């Protein structure tokens, strides 16, 4: 169950987020190059940037949750016993899962309202509804992560984080020639 969630969150972050982030980079470069070289900046670059930024955020939140990227304030970490840690872990994850589920629902509702009111971006008229939906799905995926983690923690007593392979690979990246 956790493995399925892991594959899903990683795939969303890597492929959706990866493509989107390089597209956002491309939009900025084309806009700047167009302005300086052709005296013609990319029409609607602001609209595109905003849209892609929301999609990047939506793709990242659940993966951040599974790899432990969402920071906690470790104030009394060492004072808590293992039994309290376990119960507290289940409570915190369930509570967070419920709140994020409500958050997801509200984003979908607001997206529908935006559609009813005909809200869109200024220049390209990109409708806000699908952008709200995308953020809602991203938060919904994070909610699924939290529910799954709470379930696994309750059943097995521990919930391993998704291995942060980025760190592993970054550490193994080929160094340039050393002076020594």
């Amino acid at each position, binding site marked *: 169950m956790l493995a399925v969630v892991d594959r899903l969150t990683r795939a969303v972050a890597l492929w959706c987020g990866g493509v989107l*982030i390089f597209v956002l980079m491309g939009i900025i470069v084309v806009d700047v190059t167009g302005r300086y070289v052709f005296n013609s900046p990319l029409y609607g670059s602001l609209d595109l*940037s905003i849209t892609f930024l929301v999609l990047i955020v939506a793709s990242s939140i659940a993966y951040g949750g599974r790899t432990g*990227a969402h920071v906690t304030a470790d104030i009394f970490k060492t004072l808590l016993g293992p039994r309290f840690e376990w119960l507290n872990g289940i409570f915190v994850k369930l509570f967070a899962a419920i709140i994020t589920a*409500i958050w997801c629902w*509200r*984003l979908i509702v607001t997206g529908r309202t935006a559609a009813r009111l005909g809200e869109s971006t200024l220049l390209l008229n990109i409708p806000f509804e699908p952008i709200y939906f995308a953020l809602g799905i991203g938060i919904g995926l994070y909610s699924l992560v939290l529910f799954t983690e709470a379930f696994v923690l309750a059943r097995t007593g521990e919930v391993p984080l998704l291995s942060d*392979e980025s760190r592993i*690979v970054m550490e193994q990246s*080929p160094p340039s*020639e050393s002076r020594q």
Partner: protein
Amino acid sequence: MSNTTIGLIGVAGLFLLFVLRMPVGLSMLITGLLGNIAIRGWQHALPSLSSETFAIASFYQLSVIPMFVLMGNIAGASGMGRDLYNAAYAWVGHIRGGLASATIIACACFASLCGSSAASAVTMGRVALPEMRRYKYDDALATGTVASGGTLGFTFPPSAGLVIYGILTEQAIGRLFLAGVLPGIILTLLFIATVFIVTTIRREAGPAGPRATMTERMATLGRASSIVLVVFVTIGGIYLGLFTPIEASGFGASFTLLVALLRRKLSLPVMKAIVLQTMRTTATVFLILMGAYVFIPFMTLSELPEIVVRFLLSFDLGTTGILIIIILTYLALGTFMEDFSMLILTLPVVLPVLKALGVDLVWFGVVAVLIIQMGLLSPPVGINVFIVKGIVPDVPMYTIFRGIWPFWYAMGLLIVLLLIFPQLALFLPNTMFGR
């Protein structure tokens, strides 16, 4: 129940959630949501949950976060950090404490690529610590240098902390970036002076390395020149008015990518790692920001910030006195909180105080990121300390903290200098953009 009472209960609830180890972003979001419900009712609170979080996720200026993070990750993964270190090492490695000074110089240059304290510490730590240990450097000096040098990443542009500060205080990010340049350079020099003092007192702490030939020096400088060019194009572009910070971030990331591709440093696994690391950092920052955008309106509604302002002003301590109280509070909070969350959490209360005192918010932005970095080097949490510990697990935490103290005092000295001479931060932005 009055709004202020609800606000106080909210703050207590927020700290309870912190203690229970709820992620900081969600803690703020939950407290803000429940507080808004208590004050304004469901009908207003629930729609603002989606509209406020959508507003921050679609905030154009925040495009710089994933772009600069991407730039830093490409630079780190493609070995640019090592090239910087090798160049600095070739030029100053032969003098006493030279390896530590080289680490500081490389950290300062790498900071201009990544904007993150942790990323600078990880990248330079992996490169510099094995070298310093090979040359029998004192563990305290070696680890203290890397942990402290990493903080330059949060001071120099494109500091992610200054970006977030700029957005929350509605200050121009370009001004803030330029305001960080001179203090960043001064801090680099103070760190090098610290290394000199430590190795003068204890010669065995930092023995000299071998002297590089001029050919070697020029060769390493040549390899590092591409990085210097990236920094010049991005930060120089902002200074010269060629780019907005967003344009500089996108252009800088693409330029770094191009350099890395030309150097044949990017395999598919490395590219995947770069993307995943960028997504992780983006998630960290945006969850906290979205939580803050729900929490901040609740704080405003509760009128707590106004009460804090009135309370502080009633003591008649003067601007400097209140600033010292704020600085001490930041230092205390920094011992157990992460940099972004601390900055975001405190601003709703601190900002009205600063405005009431007529403090220049660009100047305070630089001071705030410096204080936060001091907090992050302090026990018991000290994020950079844990990063260094992860690279050299056999060095005790006590030794690392012992090595950090001299650099911590250097940072304190810079804050005092900034209090006495605010122009150190304001000169460049005022020269470039006017007052």
